[in-house]
């Protein structure tokens, strides 16, 4: 487990950071910004926002959160600038060019204190080693979780066995196939929600003309593809009612990165959906797959893409370091819509000249102790709502 320091690298530490460090704002189920460390936040166009700090907000050493501490925390890597204007703090992402809410969302505010970082969230890290961490609530709230012990368990097998024995109260990620194990286990229940990441097929613009990409969008039966690859564990993102036969042409190869079995199935199902034009399925280790994605040297590429919030999604379609636009692809209309965070405009531009085909949005599953009331999967951070869960009898 990496350090819980507001910039964590490993899954468990990233999950825990949501309880220790707060961003200026989070998103709700409808992708609307909800102030967290701010008391109020207002967007001023796609690149700017203004907000007021939550009165009385303090770091865990009880020092107040000030404009200066915020600036020194966020300036490290946020990429946007902060300035004061009366009571308001202005966040400006004009220079970077991306939507400001997408820039604010992942930025957790922290303060360096010796060799550790302090946050403003409800929990504080009181101890951590490579495999364990202990978090305590800064101010006890009756009926709510007061202390969290994190345990990095080396194998799924051990984690599931411990959950079945009642030794764990939360198992953050569980594969849908393994849910069978927990049927009739009354002390645990499954919570689930849509992942912010969707599954998509990127279309290599270096190898495929605009006409070919459009023909693929209209020719691949997305409903069938989704059902074959994921069954009922991946929500539909909409699809054309009818498909058209693919025009004749060379065989098309499909890259499936070695992420998990789902992406392999998506790769296989994609190749099959190409019919006579289905070529090779290339299963590539992540590093090689990433290099292929960067080079644009592919026909079709099954890959995850951040679907929400919409502002994050638009970042993927702007030129820049976080762009997922296939090399060789240019679509001024799409970039303009992405620049303005205009989701409908983006979807229209993608439909007219597709750089990718959306497949579906998978569910993510978590096991929680049945006594935890109000437990739900967060719209962004998997367990970001945990501080609000109540402990029942």
């Amino acid at each position, binding site marked *: 487990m990496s350090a819980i320091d507001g910039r964590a690298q490993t899954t468990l530490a990233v999950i825990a950071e949501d309880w220790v460090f707060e961003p200026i704002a989070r998103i709700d189920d409808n992708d609307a910004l909800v102030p967290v460390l701010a008391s109020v936040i207002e967007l001023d166009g796609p690149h700017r926002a203004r907000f007021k700090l939550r009165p009385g907000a303090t770091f865990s050493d009880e020092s107040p959160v000030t404009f200066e501490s915020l600036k020194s925390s966020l300036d490290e890597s946020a990429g946007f600038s902060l300035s004061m204007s009366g009571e308001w703090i202005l966040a400006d992402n004009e220079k970077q060019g991306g939507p400001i809410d997408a820039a604010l969302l992942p930025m957790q505010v922290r303060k360096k204190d010796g060799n550790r970082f302090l946050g403003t969230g409800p929990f504080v890290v009181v101890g951590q080693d490579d495999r364990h961490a202990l978090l305590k609530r800064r101010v006890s709230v009756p009926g709510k979780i007061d202390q969290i012990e994190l345990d990095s368990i080396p194998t799924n097998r*051990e984690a599931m*066995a411990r959950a079945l024995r009642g030794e764990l109260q939360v198992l953050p990620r569980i594969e849908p*196939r393994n849910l069978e194990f927990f049927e009739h286990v009354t002390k645990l229940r499954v919570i689930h929600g849509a992942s912010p990441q969707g599954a998509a097929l990127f279309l290599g613009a270096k190898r495929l003309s605009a006409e070919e990409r459009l023909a693929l969008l209209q020719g691949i039966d997305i409903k069938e593809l989704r059902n074959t690859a994921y069954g009922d564990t991946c929500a539909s993102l909409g699809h054309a009612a009818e498909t058209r036969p693919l025009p004749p042409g060379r065989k098309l190869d499909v890259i499936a990165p070695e992420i998990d079995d789902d992406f392999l199935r998506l790769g296989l199902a994609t190749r099959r959906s190409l019919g006579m034009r289905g070529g090779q399925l290339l299963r590539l280790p992540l590093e090689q797959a990433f290099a292929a994605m960067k080079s644009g040297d592919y026909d079709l590429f099954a890959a995850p893409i951040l679907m929400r919030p919409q502002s994050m999604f638009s970042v993927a379609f702007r030129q820049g370091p976080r762009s997922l636009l296939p090399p060789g692809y240019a679509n001024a209309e799409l970039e303009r819509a992405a620049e303005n965070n205009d989701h409908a405009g983006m979807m229209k531009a993608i439909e007219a000249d597709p750089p990718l085909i959306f497949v579906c949005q998978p569910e993510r599953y978590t096991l929680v102790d049945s006594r935890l009331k109000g437990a739900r999967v967060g719209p962004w951070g998997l367990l970001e709502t945990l501080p609000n869960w109540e402990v029942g009898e």
Partner: protein
Amino acid sequence: MNRRWIATQLAAILALSGLLPIVGLGALGVAILRRRSEAAAQESLRALAEQASERVRVYLTQQRETLRMIAANLASDAQAVTRLEEIRLDAPSLGPLRMVDPGAPPEKLPPKLTPAQVKSAAEGKEVASSVYLGKDLTPAMDVCLPARGVVKGAICTSLDLLELQRLVQRIHIGEEGYAVALDQSGRLLAAGAPQLRAAVLTGERSAESALVEKSRGGGALPGTFDGGLGVQVVAGWARLDELDWIVVVEQPTSEALAGARAARHYFYIALLVALIISLGVGIWQ
């Protein structure tokens, strides 16, 4: 010693002498009822275990038939590998299918089959591993069949036996009865009782494991014993030779023999009432 005392003693002697044979017969009846109830419960549980085993056997047979059909129709054309890869989309219970050359290095062979077994499959004999827990924690079995359309090759896959685990987990008898599947070494492979499922993952032994291990030399498996949950159970066992599996369906004695227990209680109550009435009438007279 007055008359009343003598009358009481006489009444007691008369009541007891009348009741003793009834007590004896009643106790015998209750014991027979209990034994019959136990035997009936064991028999019905054994029937359930056999039904479950039969369903497992049918499922497994179907899987292997599907595999045989694929192997029989396999051609050596360039598309064969592609078709093999895509079969798992339609038959999710089959793992990745591949053509295996018996001379391939061990890392290219199915994990639980030896090079000699794969060679034997390529030469025409169907081979299968015992059941093991795969990477995704579901039971699996490696199978290789001769690929007759391909010169010197076997077609191999791992059968996904999640369906079997599901089948065992979904057997419920009464309020508290459940089924457990074990291999011949006594390792738990599936358990209906949630408290036993951790042992499926970790390989921990349960009460049932010890009994199966003990019966390996051909010994009988008991109809009542202290089950994996620590309570006495009535059980029915069934062996599934194709898989080297044993399925046991268990029901706590308290639930399975509730009828016999109730009959015994009613008998004791009736006996007590009769004794009181006899004594009362005797003393009153």
